[in-house]
């Protein structure tokens, strides 16, 4: 989004909305947004978007491999930074803006920029670590022995051991779950119909 001269960039507002600016930048932008309806409106919309994303994250499936996802995210960030370092000098030399054109309220001096960037990265990594460590904890009441359906089939879990029966070709057409009353085995059964072969297959896992 194009911003008018004398106003902070959308990137700065996004960092402010995420609480990822240094205290000085936060103070300066806070003063500006208090006085500027345009920037305050955009800041609020960015905060709303952040909350929506946070809500969506809460709805992610529990079997998402967070450790793997975190590793991939870190790798992508690293790759992005490296790519940025390669591209930035060339791009800067090709399209350096006219002096004064971009020097607005964002100009806080060459010393604070790297400090603020490092602080932002540190805050981001701390927040990401905290969020991921929270995500890795099992939901209350769902550790221990468990039988259940998954995207790939049905499974039995007992602590760190697991048995999964896979079925390719769609979700089960019927599911039956039993807690094994009167000393029986807890179990889960899923019925599948293969539309191509016409085979009716029933998978069953038991936890004795």
């Amino acid at each position: 989004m194009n911003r008018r001269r004398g106003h902070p960039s959308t990137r700065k507002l996004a960092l402010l909305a995420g609480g990822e600016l240094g205290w000085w930048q936060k103070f300066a932008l806070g003063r500006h947004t208090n006085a500027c309806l345009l920037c305050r409106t955009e800041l609020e919309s960015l905060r709303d978007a952040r909350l929506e994303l946070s809500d969506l994250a809460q709805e992610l499936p529990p079997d998402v491999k967070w450790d793997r996802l975190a590793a991939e995210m870190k790798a992508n960030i690293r790759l992005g930074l490296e790519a940025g370092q390669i591209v930035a000098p060339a791009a800067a030399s090709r399209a350096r803006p006219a002096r004064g054109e971009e020097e607005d309220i964002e100009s806080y001096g060459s010393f604070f920029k790297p400090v603020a960037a490092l602080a932002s990265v540190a805050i981001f990594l701390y927040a990401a670590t905290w969020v991921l460590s929270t995500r890795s904890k099992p939901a209350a009441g769902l550790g221990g022995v468990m039988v259940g359906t998954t995207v790939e089939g049905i499974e039995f879990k007992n602590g760190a051991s697991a048995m999964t029966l896979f079925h390719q070709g769609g979700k089960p057409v019927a599911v039956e779950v039993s807690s094994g009353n009167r000393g029986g085995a807890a179990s889960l059964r899923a019925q599948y119909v293969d539309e191509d072969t016409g085979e009716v297959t029933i998978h069953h896992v038991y936890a004795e």
Partner: protein
Amino acid sequence: MCTPNRRFAPVLALLACAGLAPAQVKISLPDDSPVTLVSADWGDTRTSERGGALVVDLHSVMSLRNTSARRVRGLTLLVASQEVTPGGRASVTKASLDVASGENFPVKIDLRLLRPLQKGSGPLVEISLDGVLFDDLSFYGPNRFESRRALTAWEMEAQRDRRWLRQVLDKEGPDGLRRECVASLARQAETQRLEVQLARGQRVTAEPTRKLDLAFVRLPDAPVDAVGGSALVAAGQAAVTQVDLVNHSDRAVRSVEIGWMLRDARGRDYSAGAMPARTDLGPRGRSQVRQDGQLKFTEAGGAPVSIDSMTAFVSQVEFGDGSLWVPARLALNDAVMRKALTPSGEEQRLTAIYRKRGLQALLEELKRF
């Protein structure tokens, strides 16, 4: 990926990186088994290490032969791995079969076992026979995991639905059969299903719970009714505290299967599966069953379902002599029951034939048996 495992050397030394040696998978069929193993293809079966865990990916297609004089309608194979998952077993059942004497048929098993790395010995996976059902509803097998009840119920439902479609064909002709198939496919498409988990022997959820009185639906000819009961529910979780049953018949009842319908806060109905439960229900008697553990219901995206109400109905009854009751086809005339009762595997198989291969293929299939 396949990497040698030093700590699991006694077993993994035998496992070539090209795949799990058949010696590590023990297949046991009784000497008098009505089916015999013709061949087993282990495909890309693998063992590997991931972090601190041993992963066994078993992919097998076995070819079995019906060596009995009768036609095989269904079969259950047990898959056990006490070495890898103590207390955990699985079974694979093939239903709606029509295998004549001397014919071969395939059974596919795709399984993953995961356990922390440690020493072990013996076969990682044992496959054995739990039961075979024949066309006259006679049964062979140790029936350790109640394959007899399950296979018989599926076959009874299959016979019921084949008979129903033949009746439609006789009364209304091919056009009537086509309409019935389209209606069934529409019903299958409308059915909303949930991911279900059952956790047992754990601490009670930290979520706030509320008591929910169960609602009930009675099937017209059901010999046993659910008449009362309650559950404790939280966000996406339910623990059924008890279901009160009444036996209207003059026969003793050994077990029942209770079907569940679940309505969320937005008024959407879901078929939430079924719960089999053993019971000692005398003729004209009353009894109570309960579900130990917590059920967790989530939508396809993983979001917990906000449970507004739960409706129970008796969907199957096993009498003391082992005979079964399954709902009559007429039950589907009721709009509520149409939502609650999942179409049988046979109905889905037959309508899939219509959808994929056309009416003529279905007509030929209905003539087969």
